[in-house]
């Protein structure tokens, strides 16, 4: 190695780079602490039973409360229920479809068509969420002539699919081939092998993949803005506009009078998402051992 620096300078350079790397790495964790801190401190004071059981207040109620200097009444129950309904429908479709599709890609990984599907899955995963919103608007909202919970569910479903396909495919791919061979040696056909041996042994990886997919789509706002639209009371029907927690945050953000409610809703969403994230990390580590 040609170097004009003497040994002291080289060591000094090495040390300083090490310090810089450490400092900047630790600086990178500040945003997480800052965001968690701000949302927690401002949000926890809004948590109460009624925050989770009451729907968002009407504009009239808000104005009255502001006039009298009272805290803004109401909560985010309509958002929580809407989010849960859409998540449930999206999961019910995306999980089985995603697992089967991932199984197909892993099973036929050398075939052209499977490679093509795998490539398109990447493409779909990289598609900006706002475009998924537009697409669902064109496909579902325009023909139905109304914004609806169904359209929101489909948008979330399209976002979940590639994530579940990827995790299924990757988990199936790293299964030891001896497992497959043992199954075949015992006389199982491909269907039995997949359903009774491969998929059950890949359960851990697929499950954590599903958790991550849920945590990813539950916080999505853009695809719901043009599909579920939002609604200020608790609604259970699928063919009408419905609310969701991130949509409520967006509404509160745009309405200066309701900004008090924004932090409670954000804290709820953040807790939910980060718990799922940590849980999936914990399970991955546990199942790997």
């Amino acid at each position, binding site marked *: *190695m040609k170097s004009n620096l003497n040994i002291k300078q*080289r060591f000094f*350079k090495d040390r300083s*780079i090490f310090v*810089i*790397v*450490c400092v*900047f*790495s630790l600086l*990178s*964790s500040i*945003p*997480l602490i800052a*965001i968690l801190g*701000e*949302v927690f401190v401002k949000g926890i004071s809004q948590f109460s039973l009624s925050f989770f059981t009451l729907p968002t207040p009407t504009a009239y109620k808000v104005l009255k409360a502001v006039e009298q200097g009272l805290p803004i009444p109401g909560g985010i129950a309509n958002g929580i229920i809407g989010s849960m309904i859409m998540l449930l429908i999206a999961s019910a479709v995306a999980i089985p*479809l995603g697992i*089967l*599709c991932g199984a*197909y890609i892993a099973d036929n990984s050398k075939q052209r*068509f499977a490679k*093509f*599907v795998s490539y*398109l*899955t*990447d*493409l779909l995963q*990289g*598609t*900006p*969420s*706002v*475009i998924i919103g*537009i*697409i669902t608007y*064109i*496909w579902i909202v325009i023909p139905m002539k109304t914004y609806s919970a169904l359209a929101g569910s489909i948008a979330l479903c*399209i976002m979940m*699919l590639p994530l579940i396909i990827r995790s299924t495919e990757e988990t199936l791919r790293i299964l030891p081939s001896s497992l497959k061979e043992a199954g075949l040696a015992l006389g199982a056909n*491909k*269907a039995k092998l997949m*359903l009774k041996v491969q998929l059950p042994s890949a359960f851990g990886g697929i499950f954590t993949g599903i958790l991550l997919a849920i*945590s990813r789509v539950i*916080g999505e706002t*853009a695809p719901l*803005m*043009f599909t579920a639209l939002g609604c200020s009371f608790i609604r259970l029907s699928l063919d009408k506009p419905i609310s969701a927690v*991130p949509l409520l*945050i*967006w509404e509160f*953000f745009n309405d200066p009078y309701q900004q008090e409610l924004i932090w409670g809703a*954000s804290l709820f*969403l*953040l807790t939910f*998402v*980060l718990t*799922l*994230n*940590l849980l999936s*990390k914990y399970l991955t580590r546990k199942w790997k051992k």
Partner: protein
Amino acid sequence: MGDKIFKIILFITALIIPLICGGIVYALVTDAYQAFDYFGFFNFLTSTDWNYTEGQEQYGAMPFIIGTLMTTFLALLFCIPFSLPVALFCGEYFKGRKIASILSTVVDLLAGIPSIIYGLWGFFSLRPLIISLNISPQGSSILTASLVLAIMIVPYAASLSSEFIKMIPDDIKESAYSLGATRWEIIHKLFFPIAGSGIFSSYILAIGRALGETMTVTMLIGNTNAIPTSITSTGNSMASIIANQFGEADGLRLSSLIAIALILFLITAIINMIGKIMIKHSRI
């Protein structure tokens, strides 16, 4: 269950992905056609007007393409000084130690935070700071959006880069050490040439993320429809103009917004494809 039936079922479910992707392209193209037809494709791309007064409607994508490129490029610039140290910290200096796994968990959690919460944080914490530093009078600017975008893409760039750094075989490092190289010399002269294309591809994928980011940018960029003149001026990105105006648009304006969505879709698809191909070729 019969083997044949099972195979057919798998094949049919696999068809759903090409159907969705084909449907996306078809729907975007047919609905954007009106705008391209009315203004002409290149005219639409290069026009800088965005006027929805009835009778003198004029739409062009240029301000938003430039807004997107500016926010993405700045975000990348701000992200490198943090994601590269994190990748080295987790992939080399403290590889396999507890502190590395804590840092990588922290950075991964950053990736899990919904973009609307980043937007809120940027609006209520970062924006006042920008105002008080006299960088921009109303605090919303290309710069504000890029700063928060940078934080959002750090995890994507860092985790993939550290994977590539970890893959460098130990015997290469050991032979360099035995020749008397310092750690930095090894990183500088061995890691970057060997893992460089992998690290580069992780930044390409991070760019793909930043291009389509919607809510954060919408909340922080200031939402004006002219070409931004500097990084402290307000603007609009392709995703944020859609988020802002899609709900109230119809006719030609709706078609123009969908045309912008089509352009955004194509750009992200190309960037992601380049990234994926590079990753495939840079496996060590």
